[in-house]
């Protein structure tokens, strides 16, 4: 028998069996526990597998990464803060840091902004689902494929040659260019162009979530405002927007994380050349090209620390909401 078939059967049959077995087992364990305390013990027993997975695949690697970030290339001895000093003094990683800031700000503004705009606009048209599907589609494309597609958009050929790249062909119609778009370092134009690619992919995601939140706002509320003489802008500014805020925060957090994780687009389109390098990519280079586990871990820890404030902000907002209830 094909071993793959065996694996497939084992997974399809085995996994539910094990889960069922675990539930039965917990009930066996609970039998000696007095009735009134079973309610408090049971959830913990059910949570155990998840907690174990979390510990093994999340907590342990995080701690391991933090330890490695204080060690040398191959992790044989401790080097103190050397890896962090390298991170904050080397021009290439500092450039990556600068670019990541740009990614976080611009990508969030573009995706959340356009996502909200589109969500609000399509809310009122008959072909809403078609429009939303079209805008959502790019998210289904893999990042690498999207990067390859956009490489064709930005393609450059020397003046006098046929311009195959969409952007340069278009610019040519007005006797502009051609421009080597991905090499335009001034004002980080090339980084902005890479962010546009990511925004093209993620605007649909923001739109779908914001649109769902929009549907949750009660129509009576808006009707009442309109009866009271509020303009459409006032309805949006005073009623819709405040009610959307919690959703916007969640969406923005997701996008901030996406921006910090940005790697594929840079790797495929510029390889980090022309001052477009980002942190995730310098982490991969340190790890897999240079085999330097210490520095790669230091970058990972810096990434983790960068995300913590965003996380805290979200938790605080969540707690504030709980308090209102």
């Amino acid at each position: 028998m094909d071993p793959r078939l065996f694996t497939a059967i084992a997974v399809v049959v085995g996994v539910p069996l094990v889960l069922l077995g675990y539930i039965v087992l917990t009930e066996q364990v609970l039998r000696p526990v007095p009735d009134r305390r079973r309610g408090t013990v049971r959830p913990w027993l059910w949570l155990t597998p998840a907690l174990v997975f979390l510990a093994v695949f999340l907590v342990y690697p995080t701690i391991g990464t933090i330890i490695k970030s204080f060690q040398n290339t191959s992790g044989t001895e401790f080097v103190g803060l050397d890896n962090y000093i390298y991170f904050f003094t080397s021009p290439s990683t500092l450039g990556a840091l600068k670019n990541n800031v740009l990614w976080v700000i611009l990508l969030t503004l573009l995706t959340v902004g356009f996502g909200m705009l589109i969500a609000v606009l399509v809310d009122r048209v008959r072909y809403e689902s078609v429009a939303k599907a079209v805008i959502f589609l790019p998210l289904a494309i893999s990042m690498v494929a999207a990067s390859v597609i956009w490489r064709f958009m930005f393609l450059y050929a020397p003046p006098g040659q046929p311009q195959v790249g969409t952007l340069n062909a278009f610019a040519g119609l007005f006797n502009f260019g051609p421009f080597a778009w991905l090499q335009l370092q001034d004002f980080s134009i090339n980084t902005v162009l890479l962010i546009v690619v990511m925004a093209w992919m993620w605007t649909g995601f923001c739109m779908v979530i914001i649109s769902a939140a929009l549907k949750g706002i009660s129509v009576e509320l808006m009707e009442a405002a309109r009866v009271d003489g509020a303009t459409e802008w006032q309805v949006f500014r005073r009623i819709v927007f405040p009610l959307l805020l919690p959703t916007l925060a969640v969406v923005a957090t997701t996008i901030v994380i996406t921006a910090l994780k940005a790697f594929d687009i840079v790797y495929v389109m510029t390889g980090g050349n022309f001052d477009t390098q980002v942190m995730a990519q310098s982490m991969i280079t340190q790890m897999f090209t240079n085999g330097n586990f210490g520095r790669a871990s230091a970058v990972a820890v810096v990434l983790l620390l960068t995300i913590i404030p965003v996380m805290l902000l979200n938790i605080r907002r969540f707690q504030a909401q709980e308090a209102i209830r």
Partner: protein
Amino acid sequence: MEELGHRRSRIAVLIATVAIVAAACSSTSSSPSSAASTGASSAPAPSTGGSGAPAPSSAGGDLTGQSVSVIGTWTSDEEKAFRSMVAPWEAKTGAKMNYTGTRDLNTVLTTGVASGVLPDLAGLPGPGQMAQWADSLVDLGGVLDVPTYTSETAPALVTLGTVNDKLVGVFIKTAVKGLIWFDPKTVDLTATPPATWDDLQKAITDNKSKAASPWCLGVESGAASGWPGTDWIEDLVLRQAGPDVYAQWYQGKVKWTDPAIKTAWTTFGDVVASSFGGSATVNATNFANAGDPLFKTPPGCLFLHQASFITGLGAFKTATAGTDYNFFQFPDINTQYTGAVEGAGDLFGMFHDTPAAKSLMAWLVTAPAQDIWVKIGGALSANKNATDYPDDISKRSAAILTNAKTFAFDASDLMPSAMNDAFWKGIVAYIKDPSQLDSILTNLDTVQADAYAAP
């Protein structure tokens, strides 16, 4: 309604929080690639049918049902050529090769060496990288018939595959670098190849009107963008400063800001300045298509500097050797160093010494095996006895390699990978803005000081 909304956002916050943590630490703890994991699972149990220790090249014994996992960089046409090289071995022994071709070989093997999940055999990115993995590689002394291998292979290649007196890497194909290609229909230098750099400059001046610009150049190559430029610098250093400086340079003993190295960069800068389309085109053009303007009407350039494998790429693939394209060797600059040739090759190493893996390895280094790829084209053999070249061009490039007085291996492949990566990036930055040369070289010095230090 309100309740539902809150619950939804609570779940969303939860998901987001998990995602945050996952995002921050998943990248370093990422699992070994699936390509690598096929390696361990297919390592067969010790078999009774195996031929055992030093397998004579042609033997192999009956290995029916066994398999060897192999990872290499070759894909598409190159993969086909490699597979046809292995086919006779499969037919003879009854064993099977599971080949995975990946351009991300470095990543797969770095994780593999750290985790122990490795293929039986693997192509190795270069001697520098191989040395870093020497402890994980099997000593081929007990696998190959070493005296035969040494007698059939250039001594320089044998040395390059040896780390601490342990033969861990063998070459199964090679390439000669620093060939200058031209279209004889535009400018015919077949009979009178320029002997010196000055002759070449004269040839350029004489034929100026025949093409838009003297040189064709393209350094785009994904994450490895810049490497065709490193070949230029290497060829120039080798001929301007000689093999000794060349060796000290890749060993990290000569600084990048050293006048000998800097001169090579400025000479390369002249080439960039006179290349087809200018610097933006050079950085935007893939190396495989860099030579295409040679064959355009009117021609875009007179010359292209590239290794022997270019004949299998871009417009060369459909052109006819001899009538559409031809080459001459990189001319001498300082006649003191005549006869130095730069070459490169594809290293192969063994991570698990299973009987089938041993048998395949022994087959790959033999002349009959290497003749198969040589005949298909695009490769030069590492085995001196494999000479089944399909055309005059490949025969001549093979002769350059065998007749070389000094054989210099591709310097960037010998540098630590951090240095090599910075070299590539330096080339791209220099092409973009030649006025930054000093800061680029100073930066390379910083990387050099750091990369050569013991771990």
